[in-house]
């Protein structure tokens, strides 16, 4: 039952990834695209967690943690760039 559920949930997350990609392509303004990228990395964390669960290995959490941190920093950096035209003041 668990492996079936994992596959179903992975499908749900893949559908949401496609929706994010559509928004990334369509998004009329730059902030829309940043928002789509932000959601994209958070969803990919979910996908990696599910893969770790499927394989029964706790190793993948390290990469999930890394993606979470790098994703936040890159979102903050792009927003800063849009606000000031410069990342490091």
């Amino acid at each position, binding site marked *: 039952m668990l492996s079936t559920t994992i596959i179903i949930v992975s499908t*749900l997350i893949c559908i949401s990834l496609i929706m994010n990609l559509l928004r990334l392509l369509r998004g009329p303004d*730059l902030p829309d695209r940043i928002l789509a990228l932000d959601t994209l990395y958070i969803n990919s964390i979910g996908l990696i967690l599910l893969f770790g669960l499927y394989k029964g290995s706790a190793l993948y959490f390290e990469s999930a943690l890394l993606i979470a941190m790098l994703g*936040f920093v890159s979102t903050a950096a792009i927003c800063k760039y849009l606000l000031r035209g410069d990342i490091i003041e």
Partner: protein
Amino acid sequence: MSITVEIIICAFLLMGGLFVLLGSFGLLRLPDFYTRLHAPTKATTLGLAGLLIGSMIYFFVAEQRLVVHELLITLFLLITAPVSAHMMAKSALHHRVKMVKHTQGQQLANTARKRQPPPSDGA
């Protein structure tokens, strides 16, 4: 692993997946940037929390050891999600992203962009 635990894990995973889907659905569907910002910051954070709690229970039961990385990831996401939402709203304000027509208090966007207090009658 008993069937009860498995059902609990499955419920957490399904709830997480549904909320993640909902966040992206809102991102695609809602009319303007500011309303779109609401869906991913809230729904996706809760969805990820559901997935993480489910996997924490699984590893706790199946391998008899406490994997605490999940807790750290959940905490990290809970702290960073509002911060990045705030920064994106700020950059949208400064880029004069359009709001939908029937938004109330649109004229306030100008004072907010200059970081001034609102005009006294607006309070």
